[in-house]
């Protein structure tokens, strides 16, 4: 995976509220949008970067085939049988709190890769590191994803979790 250009994540009070609802956390610091200036983003909120990735593969795009069901069970070619990619680990470092009104510049780069023999095939591990800098140029959050592709055949597939 090559380095990707920076993507801006705009942090909005309502999006924090919606995210907090989805994780079942009624913390007033997440949901009291009448006092947005006192709000703070939950620890995993930077996941909403997915909304800002222009070609994110796990969001339907108008006019493009979608992997999920419509008239048929899938709108694209199904992945090779037995092959799957899963979210194995996730690690965050927090440097500066994230608040409504922030604009975070996210830069993603690949990290280490390694392999292990698993029960159902070779397990290919990979890291993806994303640094989020706020509008003041401060490093706010670092995210390190570890994914694993279990490969009975020989091609990487989609990320499933």
């Amino acid at each position: 995976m090559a380095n990707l250009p920076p993507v801006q994540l705009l942090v909005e009070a309502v999006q924090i509220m919606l995210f907090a609802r989805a994780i079942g956390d009624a913390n007033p610091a997440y949901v009291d949008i009448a006092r947005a200036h006192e709000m703070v983003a939950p620890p995993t909120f930077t996941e909403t970067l997915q909304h800002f990735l222009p070609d994110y593969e796990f969001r339907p795009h108008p006019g493009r085939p979608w992997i999920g069901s419509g008239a048929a069970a899938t709108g694209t070619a199904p992945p090779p049988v037995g092959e799957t990619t899963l979210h194995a680990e996730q690690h965050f470092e927090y440097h500066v709190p994230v608040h409504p009104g922030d604009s975070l510049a996210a830069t993603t780069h690949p990290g280490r890769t390694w392999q292990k023999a698993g029960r159902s095939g070779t397990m290919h591990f990979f890291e993806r590191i994303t640094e989020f800098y706020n509008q003041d140029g401060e490093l706010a959050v670092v995210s390190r994803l570890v994914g694993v592709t279990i490969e009975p055949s020989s091609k990487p597939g989609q990320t499933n979790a």
Partner: protein
Amino acid sequence: MRNVRIAPGFSHSIILVENLTRGQIVQYAGASGDFNPLHTDEIYATKVAGYQSVFAHGMLTMGMTGKAMTDLFGVRNLRRFGGRFRAQVWPGDTLTAAVTVSSISDDGTAQLSIATSNQHGTAVFEGTATVSVPRSED
């Protein structure tokens, strides 16, 4: 943030969700932006991918787990939070998170171990965190 006496061995458990619904998984998809049909589309998950049903995003489990720490220590005091997804989380699951203080450092931080498990006692997420805590009991 609650007033708790933070000492090694201190442990706290909360129920994160009872009888997780497909609706909440879809709600998380909408909030996070990850609409992977393995989480949102029962037909795809069962007929194409061969799973028993849709299952929760790992990040939904981790996101819910965060509450176990932030309720105690406050969001702004979290320095590090990470872990491993150990097992899939299915609709109908009930999840409990346990946070235990492993150690306290001279730099004013506490190290926590975190385990989220389902109604069968199977760990679904296991990790660690670092939080800033007051330096003394004053």
